[in-house]
């Protein structure tokens, strides 16, 4: 058995999640190279920050952003990752872990970190498709898919998970109802008063909250259709999310005969009933307690690593944990015993107008619990008082007003002792952060995150970490730019710059830079093209395009290739061509000796390898046959793909080709924040792939379905359904309005997919579908802009515009 590396011990981790991988990290830090490590993970990818699934669902983060350990990390640490294969059995006698697909790995030490499973209520219909839990990225994908169809979601459970799910689904455009069994929300973290404030805040966001709602059954035939309450009420639902609790995932441990209660039983060393098997994370039960937040898991990871590497005899002791709700705009914090009993006293502060409620619970001279709602900035300070059992008698009167008034000289983090925990998720103290800043000369939040992991998980301590940076660096640290600046030349974000252009009537790039205090004399390659576009969009009739602020392809009206030659793609309206056009292309290819002719993925023909000085001639000959630039090089309208449609196809319901040509005639020549692609399919078989386009049209018997914000590129995104319209005139108007809304609202280099994810499909629907006058006005602004844009750039250059681009200045032999 020991043939491979006889000296190293074999460690097998079951469960590629937060607790398990943290333990492995702690082990690597203590004893690098001591173990041959294999990690089994049931999920098919590396490790990610599960906490951040809520922001992913809400569209505030992408999945890539929450991946904490990609495959490269495992490779770099010589760890074998068996992803997508759960461990099905543990042979404790032979000491072998056995994967469900047959992978066998012997071990000297086995670490169980299988997490927990969502509780699924035992009601009829609970297993119908469309009923899910909220635990992993697969669940989030299911929810996002459902949200793209719009419709109704019901979330069962008004705790942390349920409310974060509800918020995400609402932000993704679904109508959402939260059902909660108890009289008030989050009863395990909030007192009734703050719970009511929370319910009001959620309702104001358009989330319906029903308390004392007991689910009796879920109805539907092949998928969920409605949900029935015990009082007989029925609620329509296209998606049901069960967030009623979690249960330690102990099936494997139980089968292997390990001692289990609610969780896998571990002692203070995180050891199970088998001396070769440790367990950490939500799957464990320690002194009768089970877990549901990450903070205790980090402690477990340290103890467990100490023990596995035999570097210290540390013991695990559970501590208080604090909770924050990750719903952007809702500020709450809760920790310890916040309800109290006969032996406790409470201090309550209330500012109804601002929606602030604070409740502190004291036993004797000590703070034992706190709930803050509406203003939770001081959460960390209270948390620290609770954890350390500080005597608060002296400041008792002013305690509720926070450290600023409670007699502690400075307020906020300055006031905290070095031992105070700043990042609850990762257990990082103030002292540790300050030491890292000093030792490594850190100056940015990201650098602190990378070094210490503080604020790298749920992010709710970010303001405190920034305050520490400010404290350490003084004026050298500028924490203000919460808004991402356009580029290094400015502190202003895209939206602020666009607003200034409009409101201050700025009409040239230098004028914008002057008015907004650009730090570089003429910007950079990142801001200049953006400003050029913003100005074109704001002042289509008067702005003079600044060629020198365009990327080479847009300046040359051809795509530069890696060898410095260019490609030429003439427009083929709706993908339709003629013998005469094909003949003209063939002649051009022969005449200029063009090396490659290729049919593109956009239903037209690409001539590749054209030399710079040949471009005007090639264009002239193509122009002569009636062909114009296809803008294959631009942040502009690219192609309109079509299928044959009702004219020929036996399934076609409408003339999709004709519709596509009409759309391309209307939209060609427009400059946009990023490229824009359209497609029209003649029936739902969708041969033109309209549902991955920026604006896709699918014909149906009774009219046209309009789909928006698809993307077939780096990350495929299926469109959201905008609406259905009856006539081809409607299609043109909605398309023009959508183009203009995108042009006016998106940041430069933001595809429609990303823009819609940022602003929400609801917003787009409200501006384009619900508001008929607004739609007509947008469409009209688009057409007005097009009046100035629809001139063939090739013809202009053939006529001599920017002729210097295509000729050398001098030739010296």
């Amino acid at each position, binding site marked *: 058995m020991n043939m491979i590396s006889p000296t190293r011990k074999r460690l097998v981790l079951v469960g590629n999640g937060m607790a398990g991988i943290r333990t492995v990290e702690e082990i690597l830090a203590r004893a690098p190279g001591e173990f041959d490590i294999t990690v089994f993970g049931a999920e098919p990818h590396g490790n990610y920050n599960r906490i951040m699934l809520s922001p992913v669902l809400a569209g505030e983060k992408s999945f890539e952003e929450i991946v904490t350990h990609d495959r490269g990390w495992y490779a770099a640490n010589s760890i074998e990752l068996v992803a997508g294969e759960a461990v099905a059995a543990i042979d404790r006698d032979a000491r072998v872990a056995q994967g469900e697909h047959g992978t066998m790995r012997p071990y000297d030490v086995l670490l169980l970190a299988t997490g927990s499973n969502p509780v699924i209520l035992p009601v009829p219909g609970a297993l119908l498709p469309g009923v899910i839990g909220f635990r992993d990225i697969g669940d989030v994908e299911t929810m996002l898919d459902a949200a793209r169809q719009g419709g109704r979601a019901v979330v069962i459970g008004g705790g942390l998970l349920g409310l974060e799910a509800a918020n995400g689904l609402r932000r993704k455009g679904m109508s959402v109802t939260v059902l909660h069994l108890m009289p008030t929300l989050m009863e395990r973290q909030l007192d009734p008063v703050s719970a009511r404030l929370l319910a009001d805040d959620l309702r104001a966001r358009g989330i319906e909250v029903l308390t004392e709602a007991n689910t009796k059954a879920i109805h539907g035939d092949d998928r969920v259709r409605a949900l029935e309450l015990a009082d007989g009420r029925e609620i329509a639902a296209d998606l049901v999310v069960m967030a009623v609790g979690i249960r330690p995932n102990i099936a494997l441990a139980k089968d292997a005969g390990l001692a289990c209660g609610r969780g896998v039983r571990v002692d203070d060393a995180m050891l199970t009933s088998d001396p070769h098997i440790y367990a950490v994370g939500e799957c464990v039960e320690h002194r009768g307690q089970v877990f549901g937040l990450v903070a205790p898991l980090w402690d477990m990871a340290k103890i467990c690593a100490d023990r596995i590497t035999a570097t210290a005899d540390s013991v695990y002791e559970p501590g208080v944990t604090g909770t924050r709700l990750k719903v952007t705009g809702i500020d709450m914090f809760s920790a310890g015993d916040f309800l109290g009993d006969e032996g406790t006293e409470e201090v309550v502060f209330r500012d109804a107008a601002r929606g602030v409620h604070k409740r502190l619970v004291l036993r004797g001279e000590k703070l034992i619990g706190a709930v803050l709602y509406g203003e939770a900035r001081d959460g960390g300070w209270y948390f620290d008082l609770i954890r350390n059992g500080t005597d608060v008698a002296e400041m008792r009167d002013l305690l509720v007003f926070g450290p600023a008034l409670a007699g502690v000289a400075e307020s906020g983090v300055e006031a905290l002792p070095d031992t105070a925990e700043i990042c609850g998720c990762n257990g990082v103290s103030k002292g540790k952060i300050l030491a890292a800043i000093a030792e490594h000369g850190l100056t940015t939040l990201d650098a602190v995150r990378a070094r210490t992991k503080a604020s790298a998980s749920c992010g709710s301590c970010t303001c405190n970490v920034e305050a520490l940076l400010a404290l350490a660096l003084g004026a050298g640290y500028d924490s203000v730019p919460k808004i991402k600046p356009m580029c290094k030349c400015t502190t202003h974000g895209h939206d602020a710059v666009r607003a200034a252009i409009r409101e201050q009537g700025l009409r040239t790039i230098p004028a914008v830079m002057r008015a907004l205090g650009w730090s570089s004399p003429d910007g950079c390659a990142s801001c200049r093209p953006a400003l050029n576009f913003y100005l074109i969009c704001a002042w289509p009739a008067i702005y003079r395009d600044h060629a020198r602020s365009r990327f080479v392809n847009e300046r040359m009206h051809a795509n530069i290739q890696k060898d410095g030659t260019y490609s030429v793609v003439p427009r083929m309206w709706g993908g339709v061509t003629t013998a005469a056009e094909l003949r003209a292309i063939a002649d051009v290819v022969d005449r200029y000796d063009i090396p490659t002719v290729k049919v593109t993925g956009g239903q037209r023909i690409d001539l590749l390898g054209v030399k710079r000085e040949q471009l005007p001639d090639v264009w002239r000959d193509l122009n002569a046959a009636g062909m114009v630039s296809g803008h294959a090089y631009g942040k502009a309208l690219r192609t309109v793909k079509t299928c044959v449609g009702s004219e020929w196809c036996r399934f076609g319901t409408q003339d999709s080709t004709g519709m596509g040509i009409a759309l391309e005639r209307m939209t060609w020549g427009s400059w946009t924040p990023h490229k824009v692609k359209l497609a029209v399919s003649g029936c739902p078989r969708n041969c033109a792939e309209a549902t991955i386009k920026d604006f896709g049209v699918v014909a149906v018997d009774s009219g046209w379905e309009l789909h928006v914000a698809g993307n077939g590129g780096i990350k495929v995104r299926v469109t959201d359904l905008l609406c259905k319209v009856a006539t081809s005139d409607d299609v043109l108007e909605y398309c023009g309005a959508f183009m203009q809304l995108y042009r006016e609202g998106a940041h430069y280099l933001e595809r429609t997919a990303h823009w819609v994810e940022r602003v929400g499909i609801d917003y787009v629907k409200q501006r384009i579908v619900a508001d008929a006058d607004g739609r007509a006005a947008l469409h009209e602004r688009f057409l007005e802009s097009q009046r100035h844009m629809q001139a063939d750039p090739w013809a202009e250059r053939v006529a001599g515009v920017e002729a*210097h681009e295509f000729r050398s200045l001098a030739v010296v032999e």
Partner: protein
Amino acid sequence: MDGDFAQAAWHEIGSVDDIPRLGARIVRLHGEDIAVFRTASDGVFALHDSCPHKQGQLSQGIVHGESVTCPLHNWVIGLADGRAKEPDEGCTRTIPVRLEGRRVLLGLER
């Protein structure tokens, strides 16, 4: 600068007005392309038209300050010294260049 290139012969290649501000023109020199840049304040610089990264044509890049951003992969190259800005590393050869009134002169080795 003149002193350093005492050996150079100055060759007139055209007027500074032939080069767009914040742009470049190409001069074909013994079969090789030289990019001659003009900044916003009419500074004129000449570099071999080849990025130290993968030979992108610097003449086709976006000029800002005294730098040009390569059109192929966005390296930023200093016009005065031909050096890639951090974190990239590499250098493009510079060619001496001089203005006489509006006339642009390139220094060519004898």
